[in-house]
């Protein structure tokens, strides 16, 4: 895809010139339709909407200055497909194919708003025209996601018009590697992949390590169930990651970088490949970048399908053509990593923050957030909230604001129970801590962790023991199997949890789980094993009563574990319609016309069919 002829940029001045030229192409009154084709909206058919808009644009006369763009994840996935119209930043949600013609006619050509497509505040009924008027967006602060929803990720020109690669130009023309590291240090940036390690310290250690060549890696192996932050950035603004990596490589003294993308993200691979090609064409990547003496190139490697490859040493093993098994980190990877050379690995979101830090300064970045956790964090807010989607908030915001203001509270009028952060390495935080401020150390104190950004909200119908079992099962399947405690310990813990959720728990099971958790934490070889018991430990800490009910009373308070609760028919609500009787596979329901039906508990197999089928919600879980 050509942008501005084939001339390579050979200096910072060339880049500035190109930026000006691109910006000058559009008059302020130019119209632009941005269709979100991020993962959530794409699943609801937004690519087709984009096609339709493109066709409509083609058909308009030359007197109307208009273009259609396909953009990355805007964030409010619950309301997708999302379409934004410039000028005016008009926000349309839940757009369907028949709406395209109307939007075109009314808004684009007629400058009128289509009311029915506007977002409506569920509490006040007020309609919002722009995203700023929507609470979901108002509370956010977007740095890593700044380009998402704005630029077309398949066009480097878009990125440059919005200020892309200016940070790189600044670094190459006026900063020394040590100055770059100092700026990131002043920013206080900490790794966004879960570890939270101070980024500048890592860069400096790698820079000072002996050995060459040095490598720079981007960890795109996002594997936590319920997390798609990195995917949204890789697909929505790949150049932010690339620019960040080039700046980091310059600071460290590396000439070769890798982006390791999870096998299950083929679109991310495609977008990154295209971005790299365009960057090379333009001279911001490859030999003698922007005419300087610095050369750096990036290679993309796909994962083979293993969650454990998100661990840095396992990832490097994978890049060496070996099974993704972690190794001891007594000697850090910044000293001896990929192929035994000094290697600096950072997460997608970490890299995406770097250009902004260089552009606006470390001090600016550190003015956002808390004392020890600076800047913002991207979260995937999913689960039982009203507004599910992608959000970026300043560190230090309370969980309550995220769940209630941004998330819009619990769906279906149910009660909040817990929010799970940190994926399989994290824990569940209950209602009593909703006012906790989100930052690395706070979350760890509460028995969870920041993790990569997955935030799963649970309500009163969620069985916390079952949640612990789910994560333990996940980790057992994904464990590399190398070290004894992780491989055997996870199986032992899973065995106990299965017994407990089947009603075969024994007194002492909780203590056994705690003992195993201690053992894994102390003796496992890698972070996966060491943190594997966190979901269990945190649910025991805050929901011990649920464990006790399962074990001592063989009862599941949340009524999720089959066999540990019963179904009963509410004789007052029952209209004797007979639907449950007809559908019961065990013939356990009796009842005649006009007589409330009854479930024979001895025959009942607890399949839940009657509960699902009853049109009068007369079947209760007891």
């Amino acid at each position, binding site marked *: 895809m050509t942008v501005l002829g084939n001339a390579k940029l050979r200096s910072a001045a060339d880049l500035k010139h190109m930026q000006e030229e691109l910006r000058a192409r559009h008059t302020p009154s130019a119209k632009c339709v941005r269709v979100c084709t991020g993962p959530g909206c794409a699943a609801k058919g937004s690519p087709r909407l984009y096609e339709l808009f493109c066709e409509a644009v083609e058909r308009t006369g030359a007197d109307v200055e208009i273009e259609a763009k396909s953009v990355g994840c805007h964030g409010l996935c619950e309301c997708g497909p999302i379409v934004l119209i410039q000028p005016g930043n008009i926000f349309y949600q839940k757009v369907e194919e028949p709406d395209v013609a109307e939007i075109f006619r009314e808004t684009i050509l007629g400058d009128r708003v289509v009311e029915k497509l506007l977002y409506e505040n569920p509490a006040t009924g007020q309609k919002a025209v722009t995203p700023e008027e929507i609470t979901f967006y108002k509370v956010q602060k977007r740095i890593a996601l700044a380009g998402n929803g704005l630029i077309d990720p398949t066009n480097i020109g878009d990125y440059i018009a919005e200020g892309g690669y200016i940070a790189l130009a600044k670094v190459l023309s006026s900063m020394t590697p040590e100055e770059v590291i100092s700026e990131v240090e002043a920013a206080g940036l900490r790794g966004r992949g879960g570890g939270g390690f101070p980024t500048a310290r890592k860069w400096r250690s790698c820079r*000072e*390590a*002996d050995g060459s060549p040095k490598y720079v890696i981007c960890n795109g192996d996002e594997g936590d169930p319920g997390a798609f932050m990195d995917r949204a950035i890789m697909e929505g603004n790949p150049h932010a990651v690339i620019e960040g990596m080039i700046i980091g490589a310059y600071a460290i003294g590396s000439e070769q970088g890798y982006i390791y993308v999870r096998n299950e993200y083929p679109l991310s691979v495609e977008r990154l490949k295209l971005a790299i090609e365009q960057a090379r064409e333009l001279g911001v990547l490859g030999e003698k970048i922007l005419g300087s003496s610095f050369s750096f190139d990036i290679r993309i490697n796909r994962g083979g399908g*293993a969650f454990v490859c998100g661990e840095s040493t396992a990832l490097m093993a994978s890049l060496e053509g070996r*099974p993704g*098994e972690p*190794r*001891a980190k*007594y*000697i850090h990877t910044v*000293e001896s990593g990929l192929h035994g050379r000094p290697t600096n690995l950072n997460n997608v979101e970490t890299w995406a923050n770097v250009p902004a830090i260089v552009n606006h300064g470390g001090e600016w970045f550190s003015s956002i957030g808390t004392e020890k956790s600076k800047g913002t964090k991207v979260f995937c807010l999913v689960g039982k909230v009203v507004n599910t989607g992608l959000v970026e908030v300043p560190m230090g915001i309370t969980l309550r604001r995220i769940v209630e203001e941004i998330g819009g509270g619990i769906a279906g009028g149910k009660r909040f129970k817990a929010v799970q952060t940190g994926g399989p390495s994290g824990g569940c935080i209950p209602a009593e801590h909703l006012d906790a401020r989100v930052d690395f150390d706070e979350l760890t104190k509460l028995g969870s962790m920041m993790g990569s950004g997955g935030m799963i909200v649970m309500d009163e119908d969620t069985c916390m023991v079952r949640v612990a079992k789910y994560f333990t099962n996940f980790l*057992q*399947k*994904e*464990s*590399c*199997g*190398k*070290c*004894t*405690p992780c*491989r*055997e*310990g996870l*199986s*032992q813990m*899973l*065995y106990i949890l299965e017994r407990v959720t089947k009603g075969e728990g024994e007194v002492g099971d909780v203590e056994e789980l705690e*003992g195993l958790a201690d*053992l894994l934490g*102390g*003796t*496992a*070889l890698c972070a996966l094993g060491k943190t594997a018991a966190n979901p269990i430990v945190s649910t025991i800490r805050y929901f011990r009563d649920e464990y006790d009910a399962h074990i001592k009373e063989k009862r599941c308070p949340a009524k999720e574990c089959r066999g540990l609760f019963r179904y009963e028919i509410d004789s007052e609500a029952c209209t004797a319609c007979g639907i449950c009787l007809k559908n019961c596979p065990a013939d356990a329901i009796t009842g005649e016309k006009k007589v409330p039906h009854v479930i024979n508990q001895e025959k009942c197999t607890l399949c839940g069919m009657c509960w699902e089928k009853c049109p009068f919600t007369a079947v209760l879980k007891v």
Partner: protein
Amino acid sequence: MRKGKPVPTVTIDGCKVEVENGETILDAAKKAGVWIPTLCYHPAVSSDASCRICMVELDRGDWRQLVTACNYPVRRDIVVYVSSEGAQQARRGVMELLLARAPESQELKALAERMGVKETHYPKVTESQRNCILCGLCVQVCEEIIGQAAIGYAGRGVDRTVAAPFRQPSEDCIGCGACAAICPVGTIKVRIHEDEQEVEISPFKSRAKLLICEECGAPIISMQVSEQALGKVEVNCEEFRERVRLCPKCRRSQTAGRLKAAKFCKKES
């Protein structure tokens, strides 16, 4: 760069020893005469510290870190606790998990006894291939020392096993038995099949033809091992090559016979 001292000191259970920069805590323990159990460690091959049985506590000032002794590199003065409650508890926990996995290995039970672990309170929840604890020594010795790499790991997690490619008898196995020799829990066995004149490495089902004694018909050694060894020997003596085709017993008889015939021993009349 934190390269450290050239000759750091390790204080291990109160006993001070000096080691060379880069030697491990286990090396220091050996010098100090302190015993630390090991399973996946062997001085002849590289290991990954995967068994976790050699855990010791490293003094970090206000806390203690559990580390594996066999591969922790000593680069500055450190204080290590082997018999502390924390270290012992960690090692015992790991051993109990292993005993649950591999209940029939006599060698494992003996090591457990020595560590003070009489039995395990964990049930058996994973399947092992004849008590294999996945220490990987067999894989390492075959690749690093023998150079054949006939077996390797297969699968992931609880399904991880040691196997020959495609779980078929290996095309590269030369039947030397090094894997059986190094296996610390008695999983691997060398089986001689007299009628087929083959040696089998069980449980991998790999077989190799045996060199048979020309004199008495007893099996000597795998033919491939013999050929490989001969290939590395500089001796060009025909007699030597002949001698190799006899089993040790027959070779001794033959030598004795020849010595006698040579009237080597001068006995006074």
